């Protein structure tokens, strides 16, 4: 476990065992691909229907995409410090002389925390059918995201505890949606978020064992694969009889 504590500043965390270095980035890359597909299709729906709910959903998954991208950059800075010796890396280093792999990791983690919390907060607002017209609630939740990000920098466990609560609420809302619609694809979405909820529970305890991190990442992978299933099923749908 790599640790560097900067007094009163951001911290650098890497929980992966060395043999798992890079595999977590591949898992996060898969999560990015799933998220981008959702961003693309919901934005397409927005362009066709002009309904804002699709735009908000697209924004939520765009935020999640940025969060995972930041995490990949942050962990690769530690896994592959030789990257700083490449021409681009050394140019960046000449401009930002204080930049070390650990500080890159720490900054990337803050970005990861913020965009993850923002993305899932937006998703929670959509699925809970809360009114976007109530600006006071939106401001309060935005403040909550900022505070949660700030506290997460000091105690990373609070980040996963917060995402766990968000996932709990999202999963429950999706379960209610499934009960109302009785839709097979809605069932897959509920299961996907249930799996992601379990992964967040594992992430809370990564500090105690490196293997917990591996398990959490693998469960997270399963969650995103499940999220992809309803999307594939929708597009597998064949057109009805074309008549004459």
């Amino acid at each position, binding site marked *: 476990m790599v640790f560097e504590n900067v007094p009163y500043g951001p911290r650098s965390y890497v929980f992966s065992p060395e043999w798992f270095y890079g595999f977590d980035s591949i898992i996060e890359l898969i999560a990015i691909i799933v998220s981008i597909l*959702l961003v693309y*299709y*919901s934005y397409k*729906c927005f362009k*066709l*229907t002009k309904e804002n*709910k*699709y735009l908000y*959903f697209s924004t939520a998954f765009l935020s999640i995409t940025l969060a995972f991208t930041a995490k990949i950059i942050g962990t690769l800075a530690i896994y592959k410090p030789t990257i700083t010796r490449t021409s681009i890396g050394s140019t960046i280093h000449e401009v930002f002389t204080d930049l070390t792999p650990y500080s890159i990791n720490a900054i990337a983690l803050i970005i990861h925390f913020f965009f993850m919390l923002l993305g899932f907060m937006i998703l929670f607002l*959509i*699925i809970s059918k809360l009114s976007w017209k109530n600006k006071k609630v939106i401001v309060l939740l935005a403040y909550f995201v900022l505070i949660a990000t700030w506290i997460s920098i000091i105690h990373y466990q609070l980040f996963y505890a917060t995402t766990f609560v968000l996932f709990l609420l999202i999963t429950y*809302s*999706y379960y209610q*949606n499934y009960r109302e*619609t009785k*839709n097979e*694809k*809605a069932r*897959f*979405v509920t299961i996907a978020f249930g799996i992601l909820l379990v992964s967040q529970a594992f992430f809370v305890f990564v500090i105690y064992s490196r293997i917990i991190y591996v398990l959490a990442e693998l469960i997270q992978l399963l969650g995103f694969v499940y999220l992809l299933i*309803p*999307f594939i099923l*929708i*597009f597998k*749908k064949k*057109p*009805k*009889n*074309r*008549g*004459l």
Partner: protein
Amino acid sequence: MEVKRRGRLEIIADILRSVQDKGGRIKPTHLLYKSNLSHTKLKEYLETLVEKGMIEEQVVKGKKTIIMKEEGHKFLLEFDRIKEFSDSFGL
């Protein structure tokens, strides 16, 4: 009980589905009954659909018939996908 008003896209999809369910061709009087719209409103929608190339009006044996075109099938498929996506992801 809350009665939800149909949006423009829902009305278009309902019209096209009525035509599709009848094997791709339907009489205007039957469509008027199926679409749950006033005569004037249905006429407006049909003009738009003809303009967009989703349907065409033909006169067969002196009787007017509405025929669904490829664009109409494409629209209906995309509309159903959006609806499925919306239901699945609780939107």
